[in-house]
């Protein structure tokens, strides 16, 4: 006998994500899910954003192991909680839900969630965020949007980091932009360097334009 089910396999995660979303909305917190491959500059972008945004923030750091990233954020006097996934390749909504209990959010207007470095799995797991941001970096190559269309198609903004090394590498900016536009027409691409600070102004303006 056939039973029609038609059920989203990620439903369990999406239900908890919906609870997180409600939690953020009630407190007027703008949650931003920051995704990238390892080493693209997620933590650097968060640190530069803390310096320039001028709004109270909190941070959730997701890593397979270690607390290096959380320590760097804590040095900036920003509430931070580290999630160690112990091998899991992405953060899921229930990890975020649990971590919120350990985070002081009373003042926060923005919550940055730094996902595990990976361009595949985090695309599938919504966390309850308002905005999804992908950090790519020039040394990774201009073909990344073509190679990871799933990830590039789900974000509201792309940050292209390490633009200061462009003179030393073969990176075709227009090919990268074409790749993003192929699967995502709406997402703006911010060309920045966390090291020199170039281009960060537009990124900050974009963050400020998000309505909670």
């Amino acid at each position, binding site marked *: 006998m056939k039973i029609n089910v038609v059920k989203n396999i990620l439903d*369990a995660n999406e239900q908890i994500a919906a609870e997180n979303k409600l939690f953020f909305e009630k407190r007027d917190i703008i949650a931003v899910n920051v995704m990238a491959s390892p080493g693209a500059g997620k933590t650097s972008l968060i640190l530069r954003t803390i310096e320039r945004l001028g709004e109270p923030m909190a941070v959730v750091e997701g890593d397979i192991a270690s607390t290096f990233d959380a320590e760097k954020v804590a040095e900036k006097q920003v509430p931070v909680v580290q999630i160690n996934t112990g091998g899991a390749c992405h953060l899921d909504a229930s990890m975020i839900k649990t971590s919120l209990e350990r985070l002081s959010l009373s003042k926060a207007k923005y919550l940055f969630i730094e996902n595990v470095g990976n361009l595949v799995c985090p695309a599938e797991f919504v966390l309850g965020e308002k905005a999804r941001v992908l950090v790519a970096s020039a040394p990774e190559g201009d073909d990344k949007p073509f190679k990871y269309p799933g990830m590039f*198609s789900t974000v509201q903004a792309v940050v292209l980091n390490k633009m200061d090394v462009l003179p030393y590498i073969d990176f075709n900016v227009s090919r990268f932009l074409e*790749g993003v536009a192929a699967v995502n027409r709406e997402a703006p691409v911010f060309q920045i360097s966390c090291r020199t600070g170039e281009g960060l102004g537009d990124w900050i303006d974009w963050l400020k334009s998000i309505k909670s």
Partner: protein
Amino acid sequence: MHELALTQNIIDIALREAESRRITEINLVIGELSSVVEESIRFCFEVMSKDTPAEGARICVKKVAAAIRCPGCFRTYGLEMEGLCPACGKRGGEVTAGREFYLESIEVED
């Protein structure tokens, strides 16, 4: 990489729907953009369904190709075009298919 967790969800949903009847077939729909690896689902399923009413069930997968709708001529085209509409040459578009990942139906013994 996360197929273990996904397979557990698949089994959970199927067992709930089957209400302890033996499951003989599970029909999944997987979109090209969903980054779910069919082979690892099959592998995980074999291990994880042991000693449950889903053990030995056939996993059938319907694949859905990604489709991008051209903003100029509204024709849809696939990922292999790298975002360039084959009809009018305009770039980019809206993703209209390919993100699917759901359990469509199951077959159970009467």
